């Protein structure tokens, strides 16, 4: 084996996650992942999780509510006003977008972006970690079921798909929603998903490693490692066939130059490459805005800008392919109506969700609005929840992904009630 020469440029590439040239080894990807006649039938689902508790009341602003303006003396966004760019962007006579979310106005107007307000998980917890856990397991108030809701969707789907990219998490950590018997790939960068060294040497090393991982004693941890080893080998083999360097966005789409934009562009590449992707998970963190969250400028508006620019670029890049893609955006809870003494907001309850795709009846703010007056609020002064997040996800799973086994995906839930925001996908 030749010495590996990992140049400084290589490290810059690895470290900056850029889409850079890669050497093609001697294999070709297997492009047929599913047995004929039993291929996945549904959309690719992209789940964006906003970690930290996104302040939905300052993202989709209830501008008709005096209580909103009374409770947020420094944080409230002015009601829509023609010609005023710092005012909210009107959607309906009741709701408007934060100005930093303006890029989402296009997919909303085009009818592919649906907004659900006062949505969320009914469990009353104000703990980030419990709330995220409940949402990702799909079982509010229940921690006994060890798998995630997306993992159970994959497990119960009526089709087969042995692609290593059936489910992908962009990043270094597997989210709880994907934990389960179907291995999900985690990756930071498609271009860098290969081992250093010359192709012949690496091939031999990979064969040796595969043997080592296959030879382990019977033991749950060793078996999990062997599964991950297989997935990683297959992923390397498959991605080696992708020329990530020559990937160009379509329709003039420009992704924001941040981690979220890069993550979405990688998902777009996976979708276009038809590698058998069914589900992709992306995290966008930083929403725990207890102090100085910013009204029109500051930490939260910056995050909103990143979110909107990324989603709009993804929508534009995929163009007609969005007819087979559904994006779901959620967060563990919303934030208290009343701003605190530090010009921030504490943990709340109800929140906003976004669903975007060609099969979505967009251009509408869904959900029953519970109001913000005293007596209408939940717990310590939070937006109430009128739409259980499971109803939104279940409708997407059934109508867009084509999986009917909702009782297994959301065990213990028996109040499925759809908002009619998704069109039944033609088989």
């Amino acid at each position: 084996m030749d010495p590996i020469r990992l140049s400084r440029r290589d490290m810059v590439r690895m470290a900056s996650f850029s889409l850079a040239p890669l050497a093609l080894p001697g294999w070709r990807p297997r492009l047929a992942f599913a047995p004929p006649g039993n291929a996945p039938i549904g959309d690719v689902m992209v789940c964006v999780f906003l970690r930290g508790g996104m302040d939905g009341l300052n993202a989709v602003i209830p501008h008709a509510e005096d209580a909103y303006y009374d409770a947020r003396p420094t944080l409230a966004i002015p009601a829509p006003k023609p010609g005023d760019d710092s005012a909210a962007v009107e959607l309906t006579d009741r709701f408007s977008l934060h100005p930093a979310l303006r890029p989402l106005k296009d997919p909303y107007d085009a009818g592919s972006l649906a907004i659900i307000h006062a949505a969320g998980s009914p469990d009353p917890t104000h703990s980030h970690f419990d709330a995220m856990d409940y949402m990702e397991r799909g079982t509010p108030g229940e921690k006994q079921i060890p798998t995630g809701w997306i993992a159970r969707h994959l497990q119960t789907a009526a089709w087969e798909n042995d692609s290593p990219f059936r489910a992908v998490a962009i990043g270094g950590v597997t989210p709880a929603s994907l934990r389960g018997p179907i291995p999900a790939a985690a990756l930071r960068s498609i271009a860098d998903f290969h081992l250093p060294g010359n192709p012949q040497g690496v091939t031999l090393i990979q064969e040796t490693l595969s043997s080592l991982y296959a030879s382990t004693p019977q033991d749950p941890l060793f078996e999990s490692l062997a599964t991950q080893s297989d997935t990683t080998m297959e992923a390397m083999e498959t991605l080696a066939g992708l020329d990530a360097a020559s990937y160009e966005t379509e329709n003039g789409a420009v992704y924001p130059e941040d981690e979220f934009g890069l993550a979405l562009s990688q998902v777009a590449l996976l979708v276009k490459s038809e590698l058998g992707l069914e589900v992709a998970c992306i995290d966008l963190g930083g929403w725990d805005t207890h102090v100085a969250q910013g009204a029109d400028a500051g930490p939260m508006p910056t995050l909103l800008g990143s979110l909107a620019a990324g989603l709009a670029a993804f929508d534009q890049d995929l163009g007609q392919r969005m007819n087979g893609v559904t994006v779901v955006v959620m967060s563990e809870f919303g934030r208290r109506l009343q701003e605190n003494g530090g010009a921030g907001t504490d943990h709340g309850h109800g929140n906003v969700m976004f669903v975007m795709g060609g099969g979505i009846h967009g251009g509408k703010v869904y959900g029953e609005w519970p109001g913000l007056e005293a007596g209408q609020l939940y717990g310590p002064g939070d937006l109430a929840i009128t739409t259980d997040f499971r109803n939104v996800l279940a409708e997407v799973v059934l109508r867009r992904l084509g999986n009917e086994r909702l009782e297994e995906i959301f065990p213990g839930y028996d109040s499925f009630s759809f908002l009619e925001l998704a069109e039944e996908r033609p088989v």
Partner: protein
Amino acid sequence: METHLTRRDFLRLSSWSAALAAMAACNPLAPPSASTDSPIRLAAEAARTLHLLRRATFGPSAADRTRAAELGIEDWLEEQLTPDGDEGPAVAERLSRLETLSLSPSELAGLEENGRVVRELVTATVVRQVYSPRQLYEQMVDFWSNHFNVHIRSGFVFLLKGAEDQDVIRRHALGRFPDLLRASAHSPAMMVYLDNARSSQPSPNENYARELLELHTLGVDGGYTHADVEAVARALTGWSVTGRRDRRPLGEFIFREAWHEDGPKSVLGHDLPGGGKADGDRLLEILAEHPSTANHIARKLCVRFVADSPPQPLVEAVAKAYLDTGGEIPAMLRTIFLSEEFSAAAGQKLKRPLDYFVSSLRVLGVDGEVARPIAGLLELLGQVPFHWPAPDGYPDQAGPWLNSNQMLYRWTLALMVASGDLRGMETELAAIADEFTEPEALVDALSLHLLGAPLPADARQILLDYAPAAPASVQPQALAGLILASPHFQIR
């Protein structure tokens, strides 16, 4: 399409690597010690010792194994639980080059170039994990740094974290939990990170109050209500940090009387005195004495050192040790490491990325300059100290880490070792290669040196089948790299 992180992001990534790369000192290959006991007892004792070393250290080096064999399990554990103040020349020499370590927050704030503050603190942390003989102490520093997680990239926390590392975490890592808790609650880094520094009456900030109950003491199911969270937030109003307008050095704890809400408060059924800083002081005592706190800390320690789902009787025994001793941390650790449940749990924990990274450097006996590309892999593996953004600290269980990204970068690190091109970094492999030249003997010697135990027969045969394909000049490195990449080095 041009999509990439900014140059600034890359510099941030590579810069601490550079500081780590600037380390150099000696770490001699320690010879295995001889003993004269019966072979069977010796083998059992060796297995127990290896299991303890794998859990209580960042990966047993040859020197650790020698020391533990000399002292025996109980005495080695006692030595680790009561370390003296000497970090040894390998650490001291390396730390002496990190100039910002000894500066106060206000001195750090006055630096013209403060980009090296974070990288030097991270470097110091990894240096100590790799080279300190006080391994269990460093494990506990890491444990408490995650238990009381403070994200160093959160605002100006980076100016305060070094002081916290010294005055809170390192001072109390093997002391009493109530002292540690009290120090953390007076820590400017924590007060800023969880926003208590800005919490004042009449609308207090709940962030620190909630995490104090949920993460630091009682645990999420520890039996508190939202009313308790609100009362705790009110009790802690005014616990803050000096800023530029205070006539005191920047970044120190300050109690702001005028911000404090003096009304009556009840927390977990206890009435607080209703006045001034005594509210918060009493609150911390109530929390530290609460059985839920004992249980929460006990469970987390057992997850760290025993198993992802630890046996309940052991958790209860450790919680009892907490309550019996008023929260003595060594008493809890003794209970864990000398338990039957611990002995029965060998090989059941996946190494976290940091464990993998540090243990690789330790078993290789890395000396000289740690090559920058290798140091940069810790970022790609995803566990640079103090860089987890949420207050719960890096995950301590396998689930989040058992994925392809992790395999890719673990293998990458191992293959860089295998290439023999470590950019001037020296390892103990050369000495092994000099002594053992036949493939069988070489594989066996490497297995013992890197894993502390022989490889299973089939894995050994796979390496022997591979051996002829490796160029003779780097054959020992190639085999060592494969051992580090193998499943047997992923567990602890």
